[in-house]
């Protein structure tokens, strides 16, 4: 009997009118599963006037569903959840993949609840078990101190994928089919109102070539000037150098949340990561473990960070960094 090919649906995420890196990571994860299980790779693009970028998305998927509406211009969970619920009911996907991003912390569970399925969040691995056909979703638990795998016995199987655990998918020369989907949304569905959007500085730690990050051991806000100076000199060696932080400096309000690295912050895989006064809790390491080289500077020789570093300096950063900077200037 002829059976329609099953679908994997990924939710494309946008950033500055283009697709965010996580979109291509989701597509890569989706395309691997699709190839493995003989499914169709489909994507949903939500937004306002997204016709053009949806055509581009067709180079990455077999089917693109375009949900274009002025009300989608900003993310609002009530509208997005309603629209995606309609789409899921219409195309009946077997797997739904979304990014584990701030917006989706709210959207993904609500959508799962509405379509009566279960969701596994913050996954770092997706594997189809050959014997059973089960999709094993692997996620870190207990602050990244253990790793658990779950199978979802309801349909669709819903997953949010942790950013930066996959390479992005390559563009195909072929093009999939683009379909406009009317999700019948209206303003009356909205139960929240965005009064104001306050843009912070635009930071993309996930695109940085080098990151200098501070932790609790920085001790005083004045200490950040050492980190900033180091960033300046590193720009002689690396293209994009950014300031990062572990949670204590974010919670202290010294550094904006967009620069937090770790379990509840950004994930980054820079060429060089310099951790200053960071103790190396597993929750922080989960954001930076993909870094090519890790340098740790910490006064406490017992700090856990040294176990995960390639180079270590034991000592007060205020004394180490100026000499490090001076030498870097001489060498450049």
């Amino acid at each position, binding site marked *: 009997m002829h059976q329609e090919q099953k679908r994997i649906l990924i939710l494309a995420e946008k950033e500055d009118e283009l697709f965010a890196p996580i979109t291509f990571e989701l597509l890569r994860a989706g395309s691997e599963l699709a190839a493995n299980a003989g499914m169709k790779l489909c994507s949903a693009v939500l937004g306002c006037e997204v016709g053009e970028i949806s055509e581009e998305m067709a180079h990455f998927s077999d089917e693109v569903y375009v949900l274009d509406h002025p009300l989608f211009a900003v993310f609002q969970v009530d509208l997005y959840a309603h629209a995606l619920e309609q789409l899921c009911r219409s195309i009946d996907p077997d797997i739904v993949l979304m990014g584990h991003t701030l917006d989706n912390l709210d959207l993904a569970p609500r959508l799962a609840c509405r379509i009566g399925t279960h969701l596994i969040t913050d996954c770092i691995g997706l594997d189809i078990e050959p014997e059973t056909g089960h999709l094993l979703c692997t996620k870190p638990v207990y602050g990244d101190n*253990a790793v658990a795998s779950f199978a979802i016995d309801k349909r669709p199987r819903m997953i949010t994928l942790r950013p930066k655990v996959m390479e992005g998918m390559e563009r195909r020369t072929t093009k999939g089919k683009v379909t406009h989907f009317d999700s019948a949304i209206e303003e009356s569905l909205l139960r929240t109102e965005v*009064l104001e959007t306050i843009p912070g500085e635009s930071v993309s730690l996930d695109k940085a070539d080098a990151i200098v990050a501070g932790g609790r051991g920085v001790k005083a806000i004045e200490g950040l000037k050492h980190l900033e100076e180091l960033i300046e000199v590193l720009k002689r060696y690396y293209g994009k150098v950014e300031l990062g932080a572990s949670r204590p400096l974010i*919670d202290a309000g010294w550094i904006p949340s967009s620069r937090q690295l770790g379990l509840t912050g950004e994930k980054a895989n820079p060429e060089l990561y310099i951790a200053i006064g960071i103790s190396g809790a597993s929750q922080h390491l989960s954001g930076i473990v993909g870094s090519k080289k890790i340098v740790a500077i910490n006064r406490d020789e017992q700090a856990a960070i040294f176990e995960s570093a390639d*180079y270590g300096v034991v000592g007060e950063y205020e004394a180490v960094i100026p000499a490090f900077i001076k030498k870097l200037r001489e060498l450049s």
Partner: protein
Amino acid sequence: MKDLKIIVCIKQVPDPEGPSSAFKVDSEAKKVIPEGIPPVINPFDENALEAALRIKDSAGCSVVAMSMGEKPATPVLKKALAVGADELFILEDEHFKDLDGYSTAYVLAAAIQKIGEYDLILTGRQAADWNFGLVGPILAELLHIPSVSVAQSVNVGDGKVVVKKLRKNGYEIVQASMPALVTASSEIGDLRLPSLQAIKDARSKPLIVWKMADLELDPHRLEPRKIDRLSPPPSRKRDCIFIEGESLQEKGEKLALKLQQDKVI
């Protein structure tokens, strides 16, 4: 005017600040066994509680703390009363053992419906143990109320809640009519410390225990978390080359030289 009522959902977890070595992974039993670290209130739930207490400080309201489990550690949860919550509800039953996020939200929803009137529910954005982040948004779905996630601050007035919500770059001021649910992020700030007097006063505050039979629940909707596999985390160990020197200045210089030698810079 009637006082506002805020319900804060809290969960106990093994102290996530504990060292990695304190989390023993039993792959056979599919359990993480904390060793030598105490149970604490989930830190994000503490942030939620702090947000509720700040509203109590400024606008006046009653704060109800609620927790669910097979055998919740009451002394840990009583901290909520000591810092300023007015009542503590403990939903305790052998059927509540290791429930998944959907079932947890279902039990909490039943208890909240039994309480009846409320204006705002606060939860942490996720729990430090299983890290799913499901309970808040699903609870809002089950109760058919709006929700705003990852709050940096929460204010109420005129029947509305106004939330400073974290976005990827910057933030948003979002307003919702109450009743509503808000999930708290760490940017809210740490939970206050209780005074000695407050700890004493807490002993006379109401602590209500509800069993499964006290709630309208369909037992078929209570599902334990089904774990397929559990393993220790992949090793993050790297062989650290320590830069030595007579002085910290010398170490700093040698670090630059070593990085150049290894072609890192």
